[in-house]
């Protein structure tokens, strides 16, 4: 079953072409990596998938639904920046997710929260950057959404927190859904992703099954990244 289907997608900001002729297909149960340097269009693409940005051209469907408020209920999106209100306690954030997202799994949330060593009575305002990132990822992964979109889930966190987040990603993933991840820390995701897309200046320049690419090129994904983007 195809979860995400992107055909000839483009996005233009005035004279700047942010994305051009993007074609992506993600099937159920797959974890897909989207890699590229800063400004390559990764976040723009992620936001389009999450329904936060409108594409200029092309088609995008999630579980056969065109972009709209219905697809927002199918996608759990982790932005690359802090998005919770400072007045919130973790309990408040949980209540808001329970209220608005029918697929929010409270039991999963409690388990992930424990794994991240956070508690419900903590205030968002008092959390460090790493703790906020852990809370955001806990909220995102607690949704039994069809498509989980993680934009830089490991940015700005220490190695221990990084380990916890990676554990949470694996714990939170279900083969009934799919995951799209972007990160500059390719090594960390090398062993969990099934398919990869390399994005350069808004265009996909290399894509395919991770194992096949590695076998063909005799390189790790990180080495391949350096080869592709060093040029």
């Amino acid at each position, binding site marked *: 079953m195809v979860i995400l289907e992107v055909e000839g997608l483009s996005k233009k900001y005035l004279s700047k072409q942010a994305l051009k002729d993007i074609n992506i297909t993600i099937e159920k149960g797959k974890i897909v990596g989207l890699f590229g340097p800063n400004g390559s269009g990764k976040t723009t693409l992620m*936001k389009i998938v*999450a*329904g*936060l*940005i*409108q594409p200029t051209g092309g088609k995008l469907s999630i579980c056969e639904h065109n972009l709209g*408020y*219905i697809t*927002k*209920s199918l996608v759990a*999106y982790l*932005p690359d*920046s*802090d*998005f*919770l*209100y400072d*007045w919130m306690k973790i309990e*408040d954030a949980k209540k*808001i997710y329970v*209220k*608005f*997202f029918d697929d929010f799994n409270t039991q999963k949330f409690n388990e992930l929260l424990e794994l991240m060593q956070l508690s419900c009575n903590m205030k968002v305002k008092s959390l460090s950057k790493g703790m906020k990132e852990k809370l955001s990822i806990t909220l995102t992964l607690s949704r039994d959404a069809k498509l989980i979109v993680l934009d830089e889930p490991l940015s700005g966190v220490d190695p221990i927190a990084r380990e916890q987040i990676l554990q949470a990603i694996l714990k939170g993933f279900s083969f009934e859904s799919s995951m799209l991840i972007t990160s500059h820390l390719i090594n960390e995701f090398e062993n969990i992703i099934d398919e990869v897309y390399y994005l350069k200046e808004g265009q996909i320049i290399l894509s395919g099954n991770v194992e096949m690419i590695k076998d063909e090129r005799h390189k790790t994904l990180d080495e391949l990244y350096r080869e592709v983007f060093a040029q």
Partner: protein
Amino acid sequence: MKKLLSFELLKKWKTYKIALISVIILQAILMLVSRLTFDNKFDIALGFIMFIYVLTIMLMFCFPLIEIMYRYNKDLSGKQSVLELSIPIISWKKVLAKLIVSVGCIGFFILLALASLILYSAVFGYSSETISSDFISLFNQIIAAPDKFIIGLIYGVFTLASFILTIYFCITLSKVISHKNKIAVPISIGIFIAYNVALWFIAQQINKIPAVSFNLWGSNYSILASVFDIVMFALVFVGTSWLVENKIES
């Protein structure tokens, strides 16, 4: 819709809580000081206290209006806009929930400001019997003509809702044009002025057309102008919702 309303109310409460409690405490202190120092003659110190008290009442009128603009702006382009725009509910419901809660909040603050005025006047010997009789007289007027009161109330709420919706529309349109606050703020002010000038001009033309009018508390209102107001409200509401759904980007 219920979920959106409770979320909007929660956000308002979290914003207003400290300001509201502070103003109430400040007013209580000012009333107490006035009561203790007032001995049937006014002096500069008492005048100053009264001035501060009036300022707190004015704050009750201005604060919710400023907060409405600030909050809506942040909901569309602040760091929490990701959460706001990710909520899988169609935009017209989001706009309507914001509008209902904002009108309710302003109504609440108006009542609070009136209560503050009445309480303060009681401090200066405006006896509770006089206040009660004023209330009874007002209540009797309402009982005598409930239809006029209801129409007046609906008209007041509608005017307030139209005003807030126009602000929403101007902010939304400016955000569609530019995400940068330095540009978006003057654009939204420009749109607001242009919109009201255009509305005023059309209203002038409508007033020239002979149409059925009705009298409400001594003022004449044209039916045609009222229909025009309702149509404009609907258009601005649909326009704002469409822009939020299709053009706002986080």
